[in-house]
């Protein structure tokens, strides 16, 4: 039975240090600010839509016509979290990456890694403790953003959140923790393994760009509907049934596009959370159980991403030449 007490000791030390560290506070506040900005502007835009609908309805009634001539807008408060989830995807990932870099550089910079390894504990225990610290940071930061977003949603949406909404938010938070932990591990591993920790950070940023921005961007751009403002089918005024028939003729293209998208963990996180929170129209209002079943593949990918990368870090031995800042 492995001894977990040294892991908890080091992880608790890391947690205490992180709580004292202004970086975590500033980074979490910056992430929360970005996420809340997206939520606030989304909410503002929605209020505009509602006002437009009300004005149109009043006009119809004033003209003596039935208000049912125009469809009333459906209101799902969690849909407003689209921008918040996307900020977590992008900004949250950068912060996780930098936190991973700092976790590696804090030991290398102070030359404490060599000292820790002279103690009677195994190398994997040191690494496990650092990863556990990252998991804690991800849980704290994502938790802070989720709570802030839930409070703002309650205050600005005009519709109270229900218990089921809170359940969905909790599932979304868990997905965010897995996603951010995986990214933290990438930053930590590269900054620990490479000769220079700064070079590790640069490589981690390059990887972040490819994984978080470029792969989803390529997939998104290859979508023909994104090539024309407002959508190509809307521009051509083609009915839905005909759209589906035309799309069927581009199955190979669509498969390649989808494969590029799903090579990115970011896209799995996005698809999972968009479905759980009902942000994507096809999942809006559906019960959580069937959504979780349908999206179990994305959830599994996130679990493998976080824990698989963690396992790789634990399996790769610490190179004695990388114990100090720059060797």
């Amino acid at each position, binding site marked *: 039975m492995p001894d977990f007490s040294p892991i908890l000791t080091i992880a608790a030390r890391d947690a205490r240090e992180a709580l004292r560290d202004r970086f975590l506070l500033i980074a979490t506040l910056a992430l929360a600010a970005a996420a809340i900005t997206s939520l606030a502007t989304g909410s503002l835009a929605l209020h505009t839509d509602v006002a437009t609908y009300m004005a149109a309805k009043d006009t119809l009634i004033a003209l003596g016509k039935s208000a049912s001539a125009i469809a009333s807008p459906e209101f799902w408060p969690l849909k407003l979290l689209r921008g918040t989830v996307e900020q977590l995807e992008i*900004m949250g990932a950068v912060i996780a990456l930098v936190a991973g870099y700092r976790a590696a550089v804090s030991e290398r910079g102070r030359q404490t890694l060599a000292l820790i390894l002279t103690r009677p504990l195994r190398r994997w225990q040191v690494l496990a403790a650092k990863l556990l610290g990252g998991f804690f940071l991800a849980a704290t930061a994502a938790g802070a953003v989720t709570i802030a977003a839930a409070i703002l949603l309650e205050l600005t949406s005009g519709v109270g959140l229900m218990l089921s909404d809170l359940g969905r938010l909790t599932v979304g938070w868990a997905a965010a923790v897995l996603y951010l932990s995986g990214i933290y591990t990438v930053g930590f591993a590269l900054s620990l393994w490479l000769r220079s920790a700064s070079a590790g*950070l*640069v490589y981690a*940023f390059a990887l972040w760009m490819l994984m978080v921005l470029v792969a*989803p*961007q390529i997939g998104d751009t290859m979508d023909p509907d994104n090539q024309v403002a407002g959508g190509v089918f809307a521009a051509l*005024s083609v009915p839905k049934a005909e759209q589906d028939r035309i799309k069927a003729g*581009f199955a190979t293209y669509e498969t390649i596009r989808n494969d590029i998208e799903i090579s990115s963990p970011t896209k799995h996180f996005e698809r999972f959370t968009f479905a759980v929170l009902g942000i994507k129209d096809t999942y809006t209002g559906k019960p959580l159980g069937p959504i979780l079943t349908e999206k179990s593949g994305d959830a599994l990918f996130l679990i493998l991403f976080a824990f698989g990368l963690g396992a790789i870090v634990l399996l790769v031995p610490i190179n004695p030449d990388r114990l100090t800042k720059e060797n």
Partner: protein
Amino acid sequence: MRQSRTIAAQAMTGLMRERTVMLVAVMFVALVFVSAYLGWAATTTVNAIYADASAYLASVGQPVPPNPVTEGSPLAILRNLSVYVSLIGAFAAVLTGTRLIEADRTAGTLPLMAARPLERVTYARGKVEALGRATAAIILVAAIVSALTLVVMPQVRVGAADWVHFVGFFALSWAYVMVFGLVALGAAARFSAPAAGLLGATVVWLAVTFVLPAITGNVTPTAAINPVSALAAAPDTAAFQLLGDLFGPLSLSESYKFISADLLGYLPDGIQPRGLIPPLVDLLLALGISGGIALAGCLALDPNQGGPDA
């Protein structure tokens, strides 16, 4: 002038040896190829969809609208490039700006240079010149690859006016990436902690690319990296009008994407730039301010801070 040229030449030689800088530069050039392919693949697909849709509309007796893709400029095929310049191009510039200073610091040459009769302004001029040359080289490669793509691609006819726009787009792209490179250079000079320049400039770049478009026009981060979706009109309300007026001048990525779309011919009808300042003036102002940041950083540079023994 001779001293600054010597510094610039030495800095360029150093950059050529930097593996991280070369990696990101190669990544950018690779993505220029990807961009050309994407432009071609997406345009071909939309053309095929249009052919199918036209046949259907004709069969049911409905009017066939013009092809939305062929209506625009042939340069629109390069539209993804505006995104890659604002992502990888800007990051390459940030990295270059950072390494131009950090390389001297980690090598321990800063105290040595400070002991010589060398004005800080001259040092700053040399570094800015090196940054300008390095970013121009990357953009030039991107321009050559893009020009070849336009020349060899069938069904694409580029006229003289289009080539003028093409040159304008790459000049604009150079100015845009330089803004971030200069901020990184200034931050790296001002703060001696490792990676401080990289992190400081990256924070600015993140805010400009992903946060400000949300404030000025409710553009979500994912939409911000799609060349077409990023050009969505802001919701028509007094609040967004005010936010656009206030934050529009700071939203450089939107200014850059607006002018890029105009130059490459895919700007949707009726889209107005954010803010009260015209986008080009906005970018030129930003270039001037970032130049000031670089200069101020170099003037405040403490040659004894940091270094290999810190």
